């Protein structure tokens, strides 16, 4: 966002050149515009210098000689003034042009970077989100894009104009007097050293400040999230104390950091005054010795005045650019992440069952789906989507050395309900994450309707499954939009039918605007149980052959669960269902119950069989063993 340039510690980009090149590649779509910007900047800076340059001859040649004349001929002066006004107008117009064009180019470039970042993020594997915190990823979109924005909108044109000014002034100085130029160079070195020393000191303190601010903000976050507990325990005063300590540390570091940042400007401008004085003295001496003409000294002194400002500007811009590049690097790192691999070639198509029992593909929605399986020899086969899922000796670990699932073999026939029970960490959720290929299996095979799931295009595989997850995630939008998430072209009738099925219809109608009630981010204005009902409705509207319910009813009380049982039964009817639940009343009527422990299936069978076994399931069921 626009605002003050937040001076930060200079974060060093790893490869500034490459990153800069990459930013320019983004801007290369706007070559013509950029060329225009560069030209306009040069003309604008040039016009400024030229206009000022005109001043001297104007006064000396067109005003001076006329002094005291009775009927002075003012046409020369007028002409000269008109020329000057012309130069100025061109300059101002160019300033407007480059700023306007640059605004358009920079916002478009930023837009493109944001788009690339987001669309890339959507393709990244779940594993990526497991290993990066939300805060880290968010800062790509906030801090890091901000620094690029600042760089594009301010630094780029300023850099060019300052450089143009510095170079042209420097050349003019050299032409006028190399001796005096030496003094200027010596002074410049001093100035740059000062910038460097102050810059690195301030960088150090800024790093400290960033760390302190991270701690303060982290504390604020934790305490505000736990605010209700703080209240219940009357812990407000203790929190205030801890907070004060962190806040004071931050205050200390930030004061140092800001002092150094603020002090740079007065130091630089006064050094330039010193430079002026020294130049005048040496120039005067040279004048006395006769090695330098008076006019040259005067001109030279004028130039020293317009020299130091752009130098200071460039040195400050330099820090800004480095910061922006460091931010850009983090963004590009994410854009360069390996997307979720997908070499599946089996796709899901609408199909029609011919009278002879064969399956053919068709373009309209028939309600019948088939896997279209192209073979190496060029033939196509169609397998009707049934919902049979088979695990064959599956071994899996989130990290290679830490096995979570070991030798899982199971088979769910179409329409069967398979339940997983076991304590937290036993690997129940992991199994469902493998079916929809959130993670890939290194060892063993998972087959869907007899097809190895690695051969199925991921999007089509996931389309054929619906999940109701442990944490229900709702999106900003109306209740209707949230249910429609399961099937984007669902009609209002379908949505309401799905809501009725999940027993969500009645509470939705009680909301202020019924189905059109806006839900805030992540549905904070609904109770946990209501959110789960919406998630179930969302899955119902998707209408897939396979359903995965991961603790889908854990926050719904048993009475409501009993009420939606009928709906759930309807929802599950004819579908292959995988259920994870710690409430065992939910899994009782499953066709098969798998008891997991330490990544292995230790018991399997239906409810009656397992109860009769008097094993772990029996213990769980009778409350003798803890689940969570």
């Amino acid at each position, binding site marked *: 966002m626009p605002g003050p340039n937040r001076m930060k510690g200079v974060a060093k980009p790893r490869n500034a050149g490459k990153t800069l090149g990459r930013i320019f590649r983004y801007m290369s779509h706007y070559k013509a515009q950029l060329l225009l910007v560069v030209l306009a900047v040069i003309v604008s800076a040039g016009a400024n210098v030229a206009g000022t340059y005109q001043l001297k001859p104007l006064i000396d040649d067109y005003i001076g000689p006329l002094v005291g004349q009775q009927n002075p001929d003012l046409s020369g002066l007028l002409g000269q003034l008109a020329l000057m006004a012309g130069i100025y107008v061109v300059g101002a117009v160019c300033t407007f042009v480059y700023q306007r064009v640059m605004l358009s180019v920079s916002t478009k470039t930023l837009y493109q970077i944001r788009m690339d970042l987001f669309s890339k993020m959507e393709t990244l594997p779940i594993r990526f989100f497991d290993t990066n915190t939300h805060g880290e990823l968010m800062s790509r979109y906030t801090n890091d894009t901000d620094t690029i924005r600042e760089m594009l909108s301010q630094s780029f044109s300023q850099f060019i104009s300052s450089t143009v000014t510095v170079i042209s002034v420097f050349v003019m100085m050299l032409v006028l007097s190399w001796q005096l130029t030496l003094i200027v160079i010596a002074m410049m070195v001093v100035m740059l050293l000062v910038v460097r020393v102050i810059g690195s000191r301030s960088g150090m303190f800024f790093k400290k400040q960033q760390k302190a601010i991270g701690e303060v903000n982290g504390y604020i976050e934790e305490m505000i999230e736990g605010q209700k507990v703080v209240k219940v325990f009357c812990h407000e005063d203790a929190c205030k104390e801890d907070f004060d300590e962190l806040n004071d540390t931050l205050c200390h570091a930030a004061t140092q950091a800001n002092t150094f940042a603020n002090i740079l400007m007065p130091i630089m401008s006064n050094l330039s005054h010193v430079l002026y*004085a020294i130049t005048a003295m040496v120039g005067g001496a040279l004048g006395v010795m006769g090695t330098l003409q008076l006019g040259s000294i005067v001109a030279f002194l004028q130039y020293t005045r317009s020299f130091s400002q752009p130098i200071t500007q460039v040195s400050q811009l330099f820090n800004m650019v480095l910061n922006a590049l460091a931010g850009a690097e983090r963004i590009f790192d994410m854009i360069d992440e390996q997307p979720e691999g997908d070499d599946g070639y089996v796709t899901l198509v609408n199909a029609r069952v011919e009278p002879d029992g064969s399956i053919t593909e068709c373009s309209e929605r028939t309600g019948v789906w088939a896997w279209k399986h192209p073979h190496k020899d060029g033939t196509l086969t169609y397998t009707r989507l049934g919902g049979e899922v088979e695990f064959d000796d599956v071994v899996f670990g989130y990290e290679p050395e830490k096995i979570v699932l070991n030798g899982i073999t199971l088979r769910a026939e179409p329409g069967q309900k398979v339940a997983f029970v076991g304590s937290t960490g036993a690997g129940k959720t992991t199994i469902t994450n493998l079916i929809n290929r959130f993670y890939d299996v290194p060892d063993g095979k998972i087959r869907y309707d007899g097809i190895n799931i690695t051969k199925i295009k991921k999007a089509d595989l996931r389309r054929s499954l619906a999940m109701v997850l442990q944490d229900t995630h709702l999106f900003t939008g109306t209740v209707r939009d949230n249910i429609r998430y399961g099937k984007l072209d669902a009609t209002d009738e379908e949505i309401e039918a799905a809501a009725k099925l999940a027993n969500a219809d009645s509470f939705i109608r009680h909301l202020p605007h019924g189905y059109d009630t806006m839900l805030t981010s992540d549905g904070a204005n609904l109770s946990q149980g209501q959110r789960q009902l919406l998630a179930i409705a969302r899955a119902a509207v998707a209408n897939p052959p396979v359903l995965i319910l991961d603790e889908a009813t854990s926050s719904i009380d048993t009475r409501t669960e009993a009420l939606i049982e009928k709906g759930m039964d309807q929802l599950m009817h004819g579908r292959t269902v995988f259920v994870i639940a710690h409430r065992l009343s939910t899994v009782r009527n499953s066709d098969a119950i798998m008891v997991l422990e330490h990544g292995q299936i230790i018991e399997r069978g239906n409810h009656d069989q397992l109860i009769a076994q008097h094993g772990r399931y029996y213990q769980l069921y009778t409350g003798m063993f803890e689940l969570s």
Partner: protein
Amino acid sequence: MIKKLMSCVGKYKIYAILSPVFIIGEVLMEILIPLVMAQIIDVGIQGDGGLSYVIKMGALMIAMAVLSLTFGALSSRMAAVASVGFARNLRQKLFYKVQDFSFANVDRFSTASLITRLTTDVTNTQNAFQMIIRVTVRAPIMFLGALILSISINAELAAVFLVAIPLIVVALYFISTRAYPRFRAMLSKYDGLNSMVQENLIAIRAVKAFVREDYETEKFEASADGLRRAQVHAEKLLILSSPLMQFVMYGCIVAVLWLGGNMVIGGTFEIGQLSSFITYITQILMSLMMVAMIFVMLVMSRASAARIVEVLDEEIDIKDSELSVKDVADGSIEFRDVSFSYQKDSDTAALEHINLSIRSGETVGIIGGTGSAKTTLVQLIPRLYDVTAGELRVGGRNVKDYHLDTLRNQVAMVLQKNVLFSGSVRENLQWGNAQATDEEILEACKNAQAYDFVMALPGGLDFDLGQGGVNVSGGQKQRLCIARALLKKPKIIILDDSTSAVDTATDSKIRAAFREKLRDTTTIIIAQRVTSISDADKIVVLDDGKINAIGTHEQLLATNEIYREVYHSQQKGVEDDAGTK
């Protein structure tokens, strides 16, 4: 709004005042140094002052530069101290205020928005404040100084400013006021974009499971494009200001050259004065430009400041009473025709006409469906919310008579959505009682059935729980939360669905411990499982915010339809199959 924020400057006021004072010194030097420069050229080099004059004036100029540097450095330091101190105080004031918030206050803002207000918005305001104390004095002084000097040179010529300055002021005013709503619109687009990203991060599994990556990207595209348009829309106004300044400045220069030139030719004006005059034109217009810049910055940080003041202005709706009774007589609770709704002006009451009386030391179970307001009911007891109508008495007194800390220390509540904090097990449990010894802590753990697993943790009580207690399982977390509440040694303890992840056997052990060790403590248990409350002295059946029935397990089973339904939905399996055990 400004007044409110300024009160946060506090003891840094002296710095906030000194900084501009030093800036005045610095600016004076900045105005005077060009005079010396002109002297060096006019008298020293072009005139007859000679080298000695140049050296003398040069030395003077260096001395002035040193002075100016000193002033500049001091004012920089002061500005840093003042602005950082201001931010510190502001952050502290906000944090304290939020600590005083009632549940209702927190609900109104949402935690995410509170966090942004305490972090990003404070930073924005701090930067604006620093800018103000550094520039608001500098610009007018520079403006005045240059104006006075230019008038002293030639008052007639200075009339040019009578045209130029109003022109600029009107133009800048027009630009900034027009820009403000556009920037606000842009900021809200920016918020929208960020919350979309956040939403996607949180819900990435849902996005992927429903194969909605393209759909989300399209949504994002619309949002990013909207932001881009808003940004162009807002900034294209702002970028008008610098070419405009150039036009006016150059216009002034040309006009002064023409008018001044004629005066020079007419013999009423000196050439050298004409040059100086032009220098001051630049200074005057630059200082106006600076004012315009602050104006724009203020416009942009106004949104942040407003959000901060909103928090500071929020009225805390639960306050200590004047009576401030510091002693709770016993653990009796009485609801007298209590009604409650979350929104004051709403007619949808969460609780209606609750009449319930609980004797000290009783164990009460509460059961009811999703949304039947069980949690709402118990949250009224420690005054986490205030009743809308009726009266709630604890220990024979209206809860509003008590000192809040007293009441809440005597009413321990284990929340449904409970939180542990980063730190060791001991540190977390000591929230219940900061002075608790290890023996007391372990005793509480035993009662909450947490002792065994705590001892099994590496480091025992020193085991680090991680942020939000991520290092223990759900059931373990719940038991630690119970132990934490027990350490308060309260007269009333409320368990709001606090054992849902604990297995039934442990659950019953916890209840047994409660019965044995906490005989005088009133215990209120909200549960989904009938088994968790079936042995309570009385059970309250809530339905849609009203009490449906009160009675013992046996009574309710015989007479209450809802209770029977719940019971059967949970028990049928166990009775059929596990009856054999």
